[in-house]
């Protein structure tokens, strides 16, 4: 609550918490104005329309009375890793670097606000926007499941909760890159390339070499869909599945829930710490 000092008649500064809320509000308003939410609304509407509209032309929705709703939901989550990466890129990639590269820091930094409050406000606003998009997507999945099968499975909630954790970790990485890079464009491109190419490629190479890509963040994305294999935990895929196709032996590694939670949490904490330290120490040069 803002008040004036009785002696000096000057305004008393709000607490760090109040300032974090102020920053979150304004950053969220900016997110709304930038139409990114609208773009994501269009993306999830298009994906949902495709997932709902295409199966009837090819034999209908999965009909198994137990596994049908799971397979149905899995069709939606097959593209969710891409959606989450896009969310991280657009809501985290330029969140911090833009203050320096776009020179908006010249206006904001001379204000009596700690960098930590700015950082938290920006993070909360980005998280809020991402959770809104992700939540909307899961609401569409749930509503569609009820409409088609007349039922709802609890594993959808597990999948959503893990998706939020995974998305937060991706956002953390995007914030770290944003804090480190010099320009907004390079931060966006690097975040995109890291998630879509570098980590995915490393995952593939390690699997080819029969090594589990456990520490890689994108490897853990599989948990989101694995929850929808069937009733949990019975139908959750085993950590390893060996295949022998003609003269080829290969192993498919599946992420596990516990490791997924640990790895995502470590990525989240480490990347946010890095992002915070760099942002707090970064100087307004040039």
């Amino acid at each position, binding site marked *: 609550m803002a008040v004036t000092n009785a002696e000096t008649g000057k*305004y008393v*500064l709000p607490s760090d918490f109040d300032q974090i809320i102020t920053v979150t509000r304004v950053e969220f308003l900016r997110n709304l104005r930038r139409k990114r939410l609208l773009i994501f609304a269009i993306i999830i509407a298009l994906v949902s329309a495709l997932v709902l509209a295409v199966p009837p032309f090819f034999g209908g929705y999965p009909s198994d009375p137990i596994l049908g709703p799971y397979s149905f939901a899995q069709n939606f989550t097959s593209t969710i890793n891409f959606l989450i990466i896009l969310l991280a890129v657009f809501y985290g990639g330029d969140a911090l670097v833009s203050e320096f590269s776009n020179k908006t820091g010249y206006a904001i930094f001379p204000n009596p606000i700690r960098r930590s409050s700015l950082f938290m406000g920006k993070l909360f606003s980005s998280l809020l926007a991402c959770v809104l998009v992700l939540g909307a997507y899961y609401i569409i999945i749930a509503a569609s499941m009820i409409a088609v099968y007349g039922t709802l499975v609890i594993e959808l909630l597990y999948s959503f909760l893990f998706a939020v954790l995974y998305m937060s970790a991706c956002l953390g990485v995007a914030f770290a890159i944003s804090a480190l890079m010099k320009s907004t464009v390079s931060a966006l491109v690097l975040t995109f390339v890291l998630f879509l190419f570098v980590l995915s490629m490393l995952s593939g190479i390690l699997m080819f070499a029969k090594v589990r890509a456990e520490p890689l963040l994108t490897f853990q994305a599989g948990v989101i869909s694995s929850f929808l294999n069937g009733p949990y935990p019975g139908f959750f895929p085993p950590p390893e599945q060996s295949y022998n196709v003609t003269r080829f032996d290969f192993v498919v590694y599946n992420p596990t829930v516990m490791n997924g939670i640990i790895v995502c949490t470590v990525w989240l904490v480490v990347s946010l710490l890095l992002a915070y330290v760099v942002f707090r120490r970064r100087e307004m040069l040039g």
Partner: protein
Amino acid sequence: MEPLVIESLSKDYDGFRALDSLSLKVEAKSCTGFLGPNGAGKTTTIKILTSMLRATGGRAFLNGVDVTTDPKEALARVGAVVETPEFYPELTPIETLDYFARLRGIPSDRAKSRVMQVIDQVKMGEWKDQRIGKFSKGMKQRIAIAQALLHEPDLLVLDEPTAGLDPRGMAEVRDIIKALRLQGYTVFMSSHLLFEVQQLCDKVAVVDKGKLLIYDTVQNLSTKRHVLKLEVDLVGKIDTETYTKVCALDKVNGVQCPTATKMLIDFDGDTADRRTLLESLQRLGLQVYSFADAGVALEEFYMDLIKESR
């Protein structure tokens, strides 16, 4: 208590010393010009004062609070314009200023009227509901000044406040600064424009290579040796004999003739001496039709100072 005290402030950039033990005290209700050539350390100083850069050494107190250790508290009663800041392009001036008002703890009922007041003060009322992304550099500079005045600060730190403005905008900003001085604000401003400093400031600090060269009142600097320059316009041309005689006059340190009928006299004397000089010129048979300050006194002094320091 002085609103701005800088103590042995230093800043190194990868081995390059941008600020070298700079010390300065700015008195309350004064307007201090901060002068120096490019790379002298002016913007570095202002960026340290506004928590954009970390000092390598030394301290800087804003209203008694060290900005190097407690920037939030130190900047509470400071308004600043550094370079030409950019604002969030998605927001309007009203939303932007309301944001800054909230960060500074201005209650929302008071913030509304104050935001409108400063918007009117910088003549941006017509664009108050337009998104800033469409604004010119000059318009953004006005918003920057508005946000610096929003909370009625004790100290204004301005980094080249008229940069990027058209001549009319420059004049308006100078009028705003003059009005702020009359209202009792303490102003610390850097500028490349010497006449601007001369016009607005009562004290001048000159820096070069990160060091303070001089800090004195404009009045004192103007009366120092080599500082006073008089411009004399004559009817008829100046010949060599007359030139030599003028050079030999009392308290004349040098004479330049930019045109055949004009003399620029470096003069080391007070008002009475100037009257004597005019009489002497007339006694020499020169038909003087204009005799005035050249208006470049500070520039002359400044150039001498910088030359000596390099």
